[in-house]
Every structure is written in C-alpha cells, then in structure tokens.
C-alpha cells in the first residue's frame, strides 16, 4: 500500500516537474513542455486506476493554488479559463491510456503503450479540450479544433516517446511498472 501511494504521489510530482523544467527538444528539434508526456506516462506506467489517481492528485494541488502547470500557472482560475477542458480531460486521458496498456498484452510494450498514448493522450484529451474551448470561447467545434490542430503533430511524437520510455522503464524497473505487474 505504501508503495502505491508513494508512486502515485511521485508521478503527480513528475507531471509538475516535466512541465516546469526548461524546455527540451523533441526529435526534429521541436521544443516542447513535457507536461502532456507526463499524463501519458501516468497511464502507461501506473495503469488505468492509479494513473488517473496520480493525475487527479496533481490537479487537486493545482486547484489549491500551487503553480504546477507548464509556465508556472495554477490556482482556481485555470479551471474557468479557455483551456480548462484539457484539465478535465487529463485524468480521463490517463485512465484510457492505462486501460489500453493493461489490456493489450500481445506484441512489444513500446507499441501498445504508444498506441494507448495516442488514443488516450491525444484523441480522448482533445475531445475534452476542444469541447472546453468551444464552450468558453463561444465558438463552434470546428473553429475550436482549428485553434489546437497545430499541437497535434508534436503530441503524436510525445506518444511515440511515451511508448519507448515505457518499454525502457519496464526493463530498468520492472517492479514499478504497475500497468504490467
């Protein structure tokens, strides 16, 4: 029990740290903040339930006023801002990502975790994100989609990286990759 609680807490801290460390470069030199990569890793490493709990814990601390979102944002204001839909989608994205990683056990982990990250961390997350944008900004869904379409290629790269990282972590620390424990 202690180990599960500390893993959930440390992954919540990891999401924050990934959003706050100076930007790192993706392949092809695209600079990113790695916060959404943290959301994907929560699912692929901790599994559906614990991954979602880690993200919820992270969001709770953001709501309590800690500046943990990328760029040092936080507080209750981010939950009424145009990007609030993405925050609502975070735990669900981690849950779906984790669920797919847990259930799909054939073939290499890098592939299943990568595909899970695309479905959970991009498809599910953007459904909520675009819904939130269109609600707060009072625009139609296609218009809201146009606003965020530019970020999707970068997120596909992140999903591929999440897949590779999960496979590498399963080799380095097999006991801690709960989605396959």
């Amino acid at each position, binding site marked *: 029990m202690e180990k599960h609680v500390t893993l959930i807490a440390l992954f919540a801290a990891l999401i924050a740290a990934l959003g706050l460390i100076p930007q790192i470069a993706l392949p092809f030199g695209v600079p990113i903040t790695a916060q959404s990569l943290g959301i994907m890793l929560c699912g692929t490493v901790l599994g559906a339930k614990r991954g979602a709990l880690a993200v919820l814990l992270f969001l*709770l601390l953001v709501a*309590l*006023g800690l500046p943990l979102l990328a760029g040092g944002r936080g*507080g*209750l204001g981010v939950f*009424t801002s145009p990007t609030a839909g993405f925050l609502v989608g975070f735990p669900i994205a981690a849950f779906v990502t984790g669920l797919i990683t847990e259930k799909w056990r054939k073939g290499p982990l890098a592939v299943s975790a990568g595909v899970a990250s695309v479905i959970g961390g991009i498809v599910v997350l953007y459904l909520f994100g675009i819904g939130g944008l269109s609600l*707060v900004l009072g625009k139609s869904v296609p218009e809201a989609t146009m606003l965020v379409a530019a970020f999707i290629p970068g997120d596909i790269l992140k999903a591929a990286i999440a897949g590779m990282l999960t496979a590498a972590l399963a080799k380095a620390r097999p006991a801690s990759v709960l989605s396959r424990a």
Partner: protein
Amino acid sequence: MISLTSPVRTRAHDWPAGAKLAALCVVTVLLFKAQSLWIHAGVFAGMLVLYRLPGPVFFRAGLRALRVLWPFVVMLALYHLVTWTPYAGGVILLRMVTAVGLATLVTMTTQLSDLIAVVRWLATPLRALGLKTAYLETAIALVIRFTPVLLTKGTKLIDAWRARSPRRPGWRIILPFTVLALDDADHIAEALRARGGFDAMKE
C-alpha cells in the same frame, strides 16, 4: 517555490475558505447563464473594484496572474471584429476574463492550509464510509515536498547533458528522470513502512 497567493494580506484572507469557494461556484454558473452585455460589464467592473481595493501591489499581482489570457483576448477580439458580432464578442470576452479573474481572486486571498482544510471537510463522507483519507493527506504532502526535489534533479540532468553535448537537451533525459522518480518512490515507501506505515497513522 513561488506561490500564487497575494503578496499582501487582505481582509478577504479572514473570510472562511469554504464560503469563498461556494460563492465562486454560484457566480461562475450564473455568468455562463447570463446573456446580457450589461450584466457582464457590471460584474467585470465589480471584479476590477475588488482587485483594486487592497491597494496597488495587490492589483499588479492580480494583473500578472491574468496575463495568460491575453492571446485569447486578442484572438476573440479579432474574430468578432472580422465577423462583426461585437455584442456576442463582448459577452464572451467579459465572461471569460471575469470567470478567470474571480477564481484567481479566491486563490490569491486564501491560504493553502485553509484550502486543504476544505478538502479534508469535503472528504468527510469518504471517512464515514470507512475510507482512510490519511492516504490523500500523505500524498498531498509528498507532492508538495517532492516537486522541488524532482525539479532540482531534472535541472541537474539537463546541466549534465549540456556539459557533454552542443545540442539542446533531448527527450532522452526523460528516461533517467523517470527512473529517479521511481527510485525515490521506492525509498519513501520503505521509509514509511519502517515507521509503521499507514497502519500507524491515527485518523
């Protein structure tokens, strides 16, 4: 670590955190229901007065916290000028800024410990069902303690990369970074168990 709370102590700090949160919820729901530009302009003006009351230092800190909205403000303004729907644009713009502004106001004027007390109170029904909320409270403390620790470790990894490579630090550093977090989790779990673990915690 920096915090988003106000640099000066205001009268609103003494108001109960639960009441502020409840009021915020009600006002936000009403804002999304109201369609009249005048109502939105009125609430927006009221919000500005609230920001100005505690003095200029507080006002500037508040404006800094709302800076992230600028791109959306510019984009909305352009869109509604091009499509020439100024009334609808005004309603949407004012509603967005007021909703974020009021929520930020609550964050700025409420201490972290007061908000955690509200969370503990909200978790009361869970305790009545026999769930241990001590897990949650331990986890909150762990995240607050370990975010700066991980941040330091991540920055050191980036420095180590920079010392060895002319290229920007790449995504490869995330693997050792995550391994460090996993190992920390192991060590903390062991330390908690060595002190009796969650069984030893009193509700």
